[in-house]
C-alpha cells in the first residue's frame, strides 16, 4: 500500500508518545536483553527479531495510524510456542500484540506500550478439510483467498471475502469479524467460525465453541470473534466451508445519481430479495477503476450498482429480472447482465481493486467504515458529499450497499499543508452523521485506535463498563493488545499496562 507516513489523531499521538517516552534508548534491543534471550531459546534465534528495520515495519498497518516502537517480533510456528511467548510476556510484564497481514484499517495491529509482536506469518497451514462436518481447521496465518483456492476442487469456498482477501489472514478476519461483498447473504466471519483454539493472556490454551450443534456454555467463541486481538491469540480456527452455488448471475445497473442507486438497493431488500451481493460505486471511483483495470464500467454514469444472485438457475433468473425491473423503476439508465464468466470476473475485479485504483489519483487515502439503515443511505451519502466539499477534501464512495455499510474514501495528498487535519475533521463529521441517522461506528473494520474516541456516540458509560467486563474475564490485566477498542478511562488496566513497561527496556 503506497502511502506516506501520516501523523495520527492527537490522542493516539499522546499514547504513542507516552509509550516511547517510557523507554529511552532509541536503538535496537540488544541480544543481551534477557527477554529476547528467553524468547530465542523458546522459539529459535531466527524467529525472534529485534532489528530496527523490522520493527519500523510493524509500527503501522494499512490505516493512517502509527504506533510506538514495538518490543521483540516473534514468529511462532506452533501453539506451544505462542504459549511460551505469552508466559514470557507475563514474566516480564509486557503486553502482546497479535499481527496477521497488517491490512487492518483501524490501527488494530499497531504496537502501543512496547508490546511483544506475535506474528501469525509462519502459522499458515490448512490443517484439515473435514467434509463430513463441512468445516476446515486452519492456522491463523492462512491467507483468506488461499483457503478458498484450496477448497475449489472440492466445490466449496470460505464465504467471507474481504476486498483484501488476497493478503489478509483468517486470524485477522476472526479478530476483526471481517465482512465482504458476499456477506450480505452468507453472513460475516462470526457466522462462519465454529471453534477456535486460543492462547489466553494467562498462557493457558483452550478451545472455544465446538463442532457440535450447540456447544456447551457461554458463546465465548462469539465473544472472541471481533475482539481485535484483545482477548488472546488464536492458534487454530475451525471455519465452515460453503458449497459453491450451481449458478450465478451478475448484473451491472447504471444510474444518473448515487441517490437512485441507493434507493434501488433499499427497494430490492424491501421487495424480499436477499441477493448474494449488492455493491455501489459512485462516478469518481468508477472512473478511477476504469482507468486502472478497464473493467467495463460506464464512466458517464453517476453511479453503478453491482448486483449478484446465486443459487438454482431458474430462481435466480427470476431474481435477476426483478432486480432489473426494480432498478428501472428507480431510474436505472442501463441494466447489463454479465454474459460470460470472464465478463463477471472482470466486473468483480473492478470492484475489488477499487482501492488500488486510488493510488493513481492521490498519494494518500483514508477509508472510513460506518453503517446506516439502508433507507437512510441516500440521505447520508448526500451529507457525506457536502461534508467533504466543505472541508475541501475529495471523497469517493464504493460500498457494501446491501447492508448499509458505507466506505467513504477520502483521497488527498498528505504533504499539503493542513490537509490531514481537514481529512480528520471531515471524517469525524461523517461518523457523527452516520450515527445520527441511526447507524453504527463500524461495519467491518473495527474500532482499534481509530474510533475509540467515538465510542460514546453509541454507548453509555454503563454499556462500555460491561464491554470492559467481558474483556477482563479473558484478560484481567489487559495484556493482549493494550490500548485498543475501549476508550481510555473505560479500561484502566490498559493504561497500567502501557505504563508498566520497565524504564530500562526500550519501548
Amino acid at each position, binding site marked *: 500500500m503506497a502511502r506516506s507516513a501520516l501523523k495520527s489523531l492527537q490522542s493516539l499521538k499522546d499514547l504513542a508518545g507516552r509509550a516511547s517516552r517510557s523507554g529511552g534508548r532509541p536503538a535496537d534491543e540488544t541480544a543481551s536483553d534477557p527477554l529476547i534471550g528467553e524468547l530465542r531459546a523458546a522459539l529459535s534465534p531466527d524467529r525472534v527479531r529485534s532489528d530496527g528495520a523490522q520493527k519500523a515495519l510493524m509500527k503501522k498497518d494499512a490505516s493512517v495510524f502509527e504506533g510506538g516502537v514495538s518490543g521483540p517480533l516473534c514468529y511462532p510456528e506452533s501453539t506451544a510456542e505462542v504459549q511460551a511467548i505469552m508466559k514470557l510476556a507475563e514474566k516480564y510484564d509486557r503486553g502482546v500484540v497479535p499481527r496477521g497481514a497488517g491490512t487492518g484499517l483501524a490501527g488494530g495491529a499497531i504496537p502501543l506500550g512496547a508490546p511483544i509482536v506475535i506474528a501469525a506469518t509462519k502459522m499458515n497451514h490448512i490443517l484439515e478439510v473435514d467434509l463430513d462436518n463441512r468445516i476446515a481447521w486452519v492456522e491463523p496465518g492462512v491467507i483468506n483467498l488461499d483457503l478458498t483456492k484450496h477448497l475449489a476442487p472440492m466445490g466449496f469456498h470460505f464465504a467471507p471475502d474481504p476486498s483484501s482477501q488476497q493478503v489478509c489472514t483468517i486470524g485477522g478476519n476472526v479478530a476483526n469479524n471481517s465482512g465482504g461483498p458476499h456477506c450480505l447473504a452468507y453472513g460475516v466471519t462470526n457466522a462462519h467460525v465454529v471453534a477456535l483454539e486460543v492462547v489466553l493472556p494467562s498462557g493457558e490454551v483452550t478451545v472455544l465453541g465446538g463442532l*457440535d450443534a450447540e456447544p456447551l456454555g457461554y458463546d465465548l467463541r*462469539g465473544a472472541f470473534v471481533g475482539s481485535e486481538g484483545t482477548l488472546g491469540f488464536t492458534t487454530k480456527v475451525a471455519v465452515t466451508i460453503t458449497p459453491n452455488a450451481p449458478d450465478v448471475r451478475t448484473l451491472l445497473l447504471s444510474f444518473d445519481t448515487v441517490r437512485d442507486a441507493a434507493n434501488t438497493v433499499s427497494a430490492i431488500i424491501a421487495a*424480499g430479495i436477499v441477493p448474494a451481493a449488492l455493491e455501489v460505486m459512485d462516478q469518481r471511483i468508477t472512473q478511477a477503476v476504469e482507468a486502472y483495470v478497464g473493467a467495463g464500467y460506464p464512466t458517464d454514469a453517476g453511479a453503478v450498482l453491482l448486483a449478484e444472485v446465486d443459487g438454482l438457475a431458474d430462481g435466480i433468473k427470476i431474481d435477476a429480472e426483478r432486480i432489473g425491473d426494480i432498478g428501472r423503476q428507480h431510474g436505472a439508465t442501463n441494466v447489463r447482465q454479465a454474459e460470460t464468466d470472464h465478463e463477471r470476473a472482470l466486473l468483480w475485479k473492478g470492484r475489488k481493486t477499487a482501492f488500488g485504483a486510488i493510488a493513481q489519483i492521490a498519494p494518500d487515502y483514508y477509508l472510513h467504515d460506518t453503517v446506516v439503515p439502508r433507507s437512510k443511505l441516500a440521505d447520508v451519502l448526500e451529507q457525506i458529499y457536502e461534508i467533504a466539499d466543505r472541508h475541501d477534501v475529495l471523497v469517493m464512495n464504493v460500498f457494501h450497499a446491501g447492508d*448499509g455499510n458505507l466506505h467513504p474514501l477520502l483521497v488527498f495528498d498528505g504533504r499539503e499543508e493542513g490537509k490531514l487535519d481537514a481529512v480528520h475533521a471531515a471524517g469525524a463529521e461523517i461518523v457523527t452523521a452516520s*450515527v445520527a441517522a441511526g447507524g453504527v461506528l463500524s461495519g467491518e473494520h473495527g474500532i482499534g485506535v481509530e474510533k475509540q474516541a467515538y465510542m460514546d456516540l453509541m*454507548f453509555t458509560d454503563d454499556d462500555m463498563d460491561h464491554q470492559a467486563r467481558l474483556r477482563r474475564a479473558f484478560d484481567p490485566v489487559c495484556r493482549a493488545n493494550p490500548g485498543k477498542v475501549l476508550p481510555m478511562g473505560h479500561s484502566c488496566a490498559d493504561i497500567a499496562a502501557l505504563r508498566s513497561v520497565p524504564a530500562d527496556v526500550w519501548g
Partner: protein
Amino acid sequence: MDAPKQPLLAVDDPVLHAFAEEVGAEGPVAIEGNRTRWHVGGDLAADARVIKAPTGMVAYAPEEMTAQVRVGTPVAEFHAALAEKGQRSALPERGGTVGGAIAVGQNALSMLGRGRVRTSVLQIRYISSEGRIISGGGPTVKNVTGFDLPRLMVGSLGTLGLLAEAVIRTNPIPEVSVWLRSDDADPFGIAATVLKPSALLWDGTATWVELEGHGIDVAAETAALAASGTFREAEGPPALPAQRWSLKPSELLKLTGAEFETGEFVASVGTGTVWAAKPQPPRQLNRAAQLLTHRMKAEFDPPGRLNPGRTVETA
C-alpha cells in the same frame, strides 16, 4: 450538523426503566417467560423472586430486515407481526417468549433455512446485576462496534443479565415451503445433492426434507430427489422426542439408535442436533473454558443474584 444529544443506545423507553426498577440491585431474582424451557441449566433457587420481562414490539422496519421487540413477547406473537409483512426470524416457535428463546439459545428445527439464533440477535438490552440498563451490539444488520455483548447473552440463561429488549434480524418468508418424506432415501446422500434444504431430518429409517424458495426451484429439487428415493409430500416434520442432544454432524453418520433408550430418535442432518427420549450424557467444559465461565459470571454478576441455581456449564 446535528450531533446526537445522547449516545445512540441510551434508553428513553419508560417501560425498560420501570423493568430495571423492578429488577433492582439486591436479592436473588429470576425472569420467567412461558416456562417452556424452565429447567434448562438446573432448577432455580427457591428464594429467587420471579418476575416477567416487558412485552411489545417497539419498532419494526421490514425494509431494514430488523425488528426491535421487548423480550417478554411470545415468539408466536412476534412472528405473527413479522408475517404480516412477509417475514420471519430464526427464533424457534415452541410456545415460549423471545427472551426465553435468546436466553436458551437453541435453534429452530428449520435452522438451515431460518438461520441460527446466535447470529440473529443484532442488539441486546438487559438489566445488570446492579439494576442498570445495558445495551450491546447495534441496530443495523452489520456492526462490529465494540465487544460483542449480544453473542455473550445468547444461550446465557439469564445468568449475566436479565434480558429486556432485542433487535432481531428478520428474513423474507420464501414463496413456497414444502415438507417431503421418504422411507427409502439416504439422508446423507441428499445433503450432498440438495443445495440448501431448510431442514433435513432422519429417524434411522425415514427421511424428511423441507424445501423452500421459488416455486420453480422447489419443483426442480423435488424432481431431483426422486433419484435418491421415493418422496411424497408430508404434513410437516415428525413428532420430536423431548430431549435435545448436541452432536457433531459427522457423528450422525454412525448413529444406529442403540445410543438411545428407546432406540427412537430424530436427527437433524447437517447440524448435529438430535432429539431422543433419554437426555444426552453430561458434557463438560475444558478446564480453561470453565475458568473463563466463572470469571465471566463473577464480572457480570458478582453477588450471583441473577437466575441463581442455573448454570450454563451443564445445560
